[in-house]
């Protein structure tokens, strides 16, 4: 593999791509190219057409018009496998790994090397797996026979990338690869991307995070409403990208912090909380404040949330909520006690996809009404009922009777927030509140959180997006190995937080 110099002819070129779905024009006349050895960032709000473009590239969809050229030759992919064989690998947000199989088996899924008897050549598979993994600093130590389900998420991400590389891909598409990663893991990923770049791979990198663009991208293409809104041959200031994405400046991206007068007495106090994952947790969240919780993957942030929410309860220590000792053994108990939780994985933990927007909003209030009570109660259109709450969330939907699956991620997230508002919780836990939602909707969520805090709720926000933690929270706590190891006030720097989160080790990069 020799690395062609960047700036040579495009490896992939998409010309005048137009794609229409029934009733929607998803892409109109989009042109786009990537050269060998460069990282082309592809940005845009949700629904701008990024995924559609990638799916056309990889052969999931067929374009209505336009052409895809690989090394100058027109190609037509009817199936993802064909694009894979042509050297285009797409790494989706949701991993396509098999949790019950080994690393080697996953790496060679569907193209296992065979002996001359036609049987799978296990030895060769392991050997080649080791070779491929050795390219990645973090993954060189992974045993090819390790069952993938027993690896942590970041390592799984690396396996996923290694899988793409091992197919000999010349073009790698990464769709928000850092969504599930924390800071340190992101750095490892960036290093991996750098490795790929120097090996002459063309990389299409989709992200919502401006910082990653600055760190990685050589060029940036911005999509808006199915059209190319801007193209940058040098990476510009984030504000410029955002302006191109949303078509205007976003003022007040984060809401104003809490003033001293807004912060009230403690809502939540934990003393010496612990269980299998957590150790000696001391924590206080006051009414009216937003506390950010940072840390690397596996630091125990979600475990802390789940302990507070009764899903994986504390086994030691004491918890007080608004001055009362509590010991929640199930989410139901926690909700009754006044805790709400916005789960981190909307699709698998938050939404009931086959039901309407209103039904999703009412899920919790229904759960605490008598089983035989009419399901229409609470639904009418006054400000105290669910429709009033949904109105307040400014949810964009044709009707609240519409299936929630048809809504954008941001609107879905708002419907889940509305679910909690109906319960008037004292403490609200947000896990990755803006994961996978677009810039505009993010700002909406930040303001919403602040409004809730002003109304007297204590808010605990877990996020892997450091700028978000710093921008949206009044205080930042850092966890490491099941403990809270540091606390910062407003204005902490990313470096300080990372330093604490990684136990003092200097962050690479």
């Amino acid at each position, binding site marked *: 593999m020799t690395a062609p110099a960047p700036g040579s002819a495009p490896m992939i070129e998409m010309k005048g791509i137009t794609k229409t779905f029934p009733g929607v024009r998803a892409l109109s006349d989009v042109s786009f190219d990537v050269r060998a050895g460069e990282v082309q960032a592809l940005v845009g709000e949700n629904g701008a057409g990024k995924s559609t473009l990638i799916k056309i590239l990889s052969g999931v969809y067929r374009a209505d018009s336009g052409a895809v050229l690989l090394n100058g030759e027109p190609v037509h992919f009817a199936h993802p496998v064909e694009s894979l064989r042509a050297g285009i690998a797409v790494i989706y947000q949701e991993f396509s790994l098999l949790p019950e199989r080994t690393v080697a088996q996953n790496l060679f899924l569907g193209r296992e090397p065979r002996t001359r008897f036609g049987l799978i050549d296990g030895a060769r598979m392991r050997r080649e797996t080791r070779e491929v993994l050795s390219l990645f600093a973090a993954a060189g130590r992974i045993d090819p026979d390790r069952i993938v389900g027993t690896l942590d998420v970041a390592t799984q991400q690396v396996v996923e990338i290694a899988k793409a590389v091992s197919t000999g891909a010349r073009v790698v598409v990464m769709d928000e690869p850092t969504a599930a990663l924390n800071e340190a893991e992101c750095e490892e990923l960036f290093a991996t991307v750098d490795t790929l770049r120097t090996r002459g791979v063309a990389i299409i990198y989709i992200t919502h995070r401006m910082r990653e663009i600055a760190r990685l991208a050589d060029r940036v293409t911005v999509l808006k409403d199915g059209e190319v809104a801007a193209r940058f041959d040098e990476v510009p200031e984030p504000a410029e990208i955002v302006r191109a994405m949303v078509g205007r400046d976003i003022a007040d991206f984060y809401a104003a912090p809490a003033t001293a007068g807004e912060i009230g007495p403690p809502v939540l106090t934990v003393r010496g909380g612990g269980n299998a994952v957590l150790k000696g947790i001391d924590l206080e969240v006051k009414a009216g404040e937003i506390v950010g919780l940072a840390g690397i993957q596996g630091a125990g942030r979600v475990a802390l949330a789940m302990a507070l929410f009764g899903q994986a309860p504390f086994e030691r220590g004491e918890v007080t909520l608004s001055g009362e000792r509590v010991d929640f053994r199930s*989410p139901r108990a926690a909700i009754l006690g006044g805790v709400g939780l916005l789960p981190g994985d909307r699709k698998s933990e938050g*939404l009931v*996809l086959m039901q309407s927007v209103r039904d999703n909003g009412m899920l*919790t209030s229904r*759960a605490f009404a008598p089983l035989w009570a009419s399901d229409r109660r609470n639904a009418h259109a006054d400000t105290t009922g669910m429709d009033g709450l949904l109105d307040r969330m400014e949810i964009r939907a044709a*009707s609240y009777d519409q299936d929630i699956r048809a809504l954008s991620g941001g609107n879905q997230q708002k419907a889940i927030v509305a679910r909690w508002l109906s319960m008037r919780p004292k403490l609200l836990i947000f896990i990755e509140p803006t994961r996978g939602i677009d810039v505009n909707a993010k700002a909406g969520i930040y303001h919403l959180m602040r409004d809730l805090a002003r109304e007297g709720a204590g808010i605990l926000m877990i996020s892997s997006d450091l700028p978000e933690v710093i921008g949206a929270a009044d205080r930042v706590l850092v966890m490491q190995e099941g403990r809270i190891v540091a606390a910062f006030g407003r204005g902490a720097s990313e470096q300080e937080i990372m330093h604490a989160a990684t136990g003092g080790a200097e962050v690479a990069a």
Partner: protein
Amino acid sequence: MSDSTARPRAARRRLPRVNPVWLLLAALILAIVFMNPGFVEPTGYMNFLKRAAPLAILAAGQVYVIVSGGFDLSVGSLITLVVVGSSMLTNNDPSATVWVIPLMLALGLGVGAVNGAIVCFLRVPSLIATLGMMITLNGLAFLWSGGAPRGYLPDTFRFFGRELIKDVPLVRFIPVSVIVLVVVVGLLTWLMHRTNLGRQVHAIGDNPVAARLAGVAVNRVRITAFMLSGLSGALAGILLGGFAGVSTDVGTGYELQAITAAVLGGAQLLGGRGSVPAAVGGALALTAIFTLLNFLGLPQPVRQVVQGLILIAAVALAMHRREETGT
């Protein structure tokens, strides 16, 4: 992704799409009337309803379990146990009905509760849990009776499945079982489609993790679904025992028929979607198919083949529609 900023309060009602099961039922009934004009007489359709009542009730109960994401294979054996047990307990004493029927309904609820508890707490998939229950209940029915039930079912017990209410205007007579059917289906429909319970049954079948994190008492709702299915099994047993008297294999095969009926009514296996009235429609359609084939004088094997083909076709069609509409 709609950008309409209009306040979406007034629900824009979609045109109600007719569930294909009603069309199927209508076509079958037309065919039956064509074959046998006597069907439009009260004796014709009332007999039909009377015959369909146990299966319809069973399907209405089964829908709860299917919508919650599971299966209940134990209802057939439960029917057998109810009939056999009732005959053992009443022991020819007409006055015993007063306590035997409530006891049998309690038995149905109890069996459902055990099914639900096995699924919820032992985490055994319902297919296996209720399969085990099916075998066990069948064994219990035999064990209890020693293989042959030792009592008659008194007429007081058989009232619900056998008697007619005469001199009713318009229709001349109404079988008691049809009244039971209407009441039970009405209640189960209301419970499924107009109450919190119904919404939560749908929710846990759709996404149990989300439901739990939203505070839904998943186990309680799931167990309730199984209990309603068990209750419907006991009711069907009381009607069947009333209709036809004691025998040792009354319930055989009813579990699969109930699932078939629910599926014909568009219930989605593995949960999240389903309707009680449509399942009842499915049960009526299934009974209509059997009646029609009976009138046509087709032999038993042909009936099996037709049943199999309709079952596959109905589900294939439903999947096709679902893919087309993307819902």
